[in-house]
């Protein structure tokens, strides 16, 4: 029994050690709870849940790329293109709506494939390959839509709606989060991503198909970005050509706040979720507190630094 307790305590400890920003998040929530009674209410927490979903889903996929020591700047644009094509599919092409989600996912995966091939086989640094995709994909979104919003299909709108009291975006986020965590930790694809990001030379010498791994993580990233785009469009019931502009920075930040290293080899889906929550909670809290929008930006920056700073501090204490 005592052994079990120790084991459990150890697990909590290692959970904390692995999910650093959690402390930052908890402190942040406590501070907000103290500052405003509006924060810790059911409806508001649901709001936060819905609001975090897009970035979280996007960042889940991105975590694979970052674990493999790459970076994917195209996720925001890919989200927009997926949403747009899936809307166009039913709108202008008048095709069956249920397929629109599949089409959107396929578009995301295809974009990821192109980025992955450019960097794995074309030997472009992932920063450049995905930057090129960022602008290409945004351009295509504008071309397809002629710069105008298109209403989404009912299936996509369903993604943004509520199932009884449960908002679909939260359901989608939880389900895809579990899938992402499973794939990252329990499958060969995930392990290989860690190996490639941790030491690409060792991975190659161990017979891991490094290029295929790189392509795969980008396809995963594209898939999740596509889904995130449809989630967002579903909430807005329309796909905007400017959808998710600049979201890549938030998604990368969520991943890094959650403990992933841009140098590769480190990253966790739970961490990424916490990172995304940190960002969403700050924004929500600042709105609740009616902080002036200029000062909001200042505060957001300070809080990001503090949230990650807590983590660093805590990790230092654990070590010695």
């Amino acid at each position, binding site marked *: 029994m005592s052994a079990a307790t120790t084991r459990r305590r150890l697990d909590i400890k290692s959970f904390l050690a692995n999910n650093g920003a959690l402390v930052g998040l908890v402190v942040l929530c406590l501070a907000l709870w103290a500052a405003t009674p509006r924060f810790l209410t059911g409806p508001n927490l649901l709001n936060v849940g819905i609001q975090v979903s897009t970035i979280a889903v996007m960042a889940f996929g991105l975590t694979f790329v970052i674990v493999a020591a790459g970076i994917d700047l195209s996720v925001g644009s890919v989200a927009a293109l997926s949403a747009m094509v899936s809307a166009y599919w039913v709108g202008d092409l008048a095709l069956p709506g249920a397929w629109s989600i599949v089409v959107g996912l396929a578009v995301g995966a295809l974009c990821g494939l192109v980025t992955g091939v450019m960097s794995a086989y074309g030997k472009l640094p992932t920063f450049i390959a995905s930057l090129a995709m960022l602008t290409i994909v945004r351009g295509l979104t504008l071309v397809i839509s002629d710069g105008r919003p298109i209403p989404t299909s009912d299936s996509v709108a369903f993604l943004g709606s509520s199932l009884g009291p449960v908002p679909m975006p939260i359901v989608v986020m939880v389900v895809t989060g579990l899938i992402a965590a499973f794939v990252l930790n329990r499958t*060969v694809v995930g392990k290989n991503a860690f190996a490639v990001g941790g030491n690409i030379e060792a991975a190659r010498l161990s017979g891991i198909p490094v290029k295929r791994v790189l392509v795969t993580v980008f396809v995963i990233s594209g898939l999740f970005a596509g889904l995130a785009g449809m989630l967002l469009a579903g909430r807005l019931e329309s796909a905007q050509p400017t959808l998710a502009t600049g979201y890549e920075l938030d998604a990368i930040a969520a991943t890094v706040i959650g403990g992933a290293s841009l140098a590769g080899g480190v990253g966790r889906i739970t961490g990424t979720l916490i990172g995304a929550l940190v960002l969403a909670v700050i924004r929500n809290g600042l709105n609740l507190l009616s902080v002036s929008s200029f000062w909001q930006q200042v505060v957001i920056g300070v809080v990001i630094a503090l949230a990650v700073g807590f983590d660093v501090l805590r990790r230092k204490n654990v070590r010695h």
Partner: protein
Amino acid sequence: MQANPLLRLEKISKSFGHVQVIHDVTVDVHPGRVTVLLGENGAGKSTLIKMIAGVHAPSGGRILVDGAEVRIPDTKASEALGIATIHQELNLVPSMTVAENITLGRTPRRFGVINRRRMRAIAREALATIGLDVDVDTPVGDLGIARQQLVEIAKALSLDARILILDEPTAALTTSEIKALFDVVRDLKARGVGMVFISHHLDEIAEIGDDVNVLRDGEFVARVPADTHEDELIRLMVGRSIDKQFPREPSPAPAGAPVQLDVSALEAPGLGPISLQVRPGEVVALAGLMGAGRTELLRCLAGADAYTSGRVEVRGERLAPYDVAAATAAGVGHVPEDRKMQGLVLDASVAENIGYATVRSTSRFGLVDRKGQRRRASAVAERLRIRMDSIDQPIRSLSGGNQQKAVFGRWFTAGSKVLLLDEPTRGVDVGAKVEIYELINEITADGGCVLMASSDLPEVLGMADRILVMSQGRIAGELPAESATQDSIMQLAVSNVNRDEEPANPQGATA
């Protein structure tokens, strides 16, 4: 010799750009025999085996397996032919666990899902063959370099290959692990596995080898039996004979000279309390088993790691803890254990790598003394006979032993008075070792001192003036060099210095 080699390299050549590093070399590997490759640093041994491992493609010649010509474009192809390779440089993923590393590239799976239990079982079994007792869930990066080397060996062994290639597997190991490794090698021999073995420890060749192929400057020189006398092997390899492998010239400090390095009651987690003194002109060796704490002690002294209490003084001045820059400024130089991770900037040039410790001290108004830096680097490279195309070549493309010489050269160039050396001759050939030893003599003759951790007992006995033996993080005893023997060192090394506490076994919990 037998008629049917398992593997044959036939008239193999290799060039990198315009530089040809292997010329028409032919080598055979027979089942149940250990083929030794012998040669100076940069002779081409690693390059040769990398062509078998699927890392490099030969520029000329053929590779035959079971008499049939094969192409080996990558590691997978090599493995498919039944070849397993332990490379000279560690190829592990530090952030992944021991079990994950051992099964890297062939993770046991079912429908793509990892079978963790099997993964751990494979890893435990592999570790057992080599006698390494670590938790398979430990991240590899948390292990010292010796244990990492053993993990690497275990990984290759677990492939159950027909042909096993071992590129300096013993360089980072102490006597007991080497013994365990050789037991495995003998067992594999009995089972008909053909092996290629590379080492700069000549005594190991007679012990484990069968045929010796000597290379010089990428050319085949001779094939001789493994029991050939060491002096003859050296002559074949270096092209001249070496009269004294350990040319130590003690340079005792004048009476009353102040102590150079004074350590009192230093403690860090798992280490100490340790007190020791090193006097001008002295070479003090730190001996011990793997994990005895030698590396950690040196790192604390160099400012690379923090310590919890105690005091370190250099020539009477207290050294700020955990501050390498302060230590360097006080004339302390530190050759770390792991040249690749801690010693070198692999993509920088040889000259730059040699010069890192002197960039600031030789600068003027913040400007780098570029000419001087190159001159000093060239001079020390020449003295240490670093084999290279040019001093501006990236150090990554140098052979392992030559890289090691460059790290040593950095601190010689810096004129350090207190040299902390951690396995300073790891992977260095016999000839170049002598050069390093002579530089050590020069430093001590100049009033400097050396504290050297080494797992190479002949080196400890041959070069040290005093020997401190460590065990379980403490100094178990001191032996004067004149009377010490390998046995007396080992006796102290296995002694239990923590008698008052429960028996120390850091990994006991996992058993």
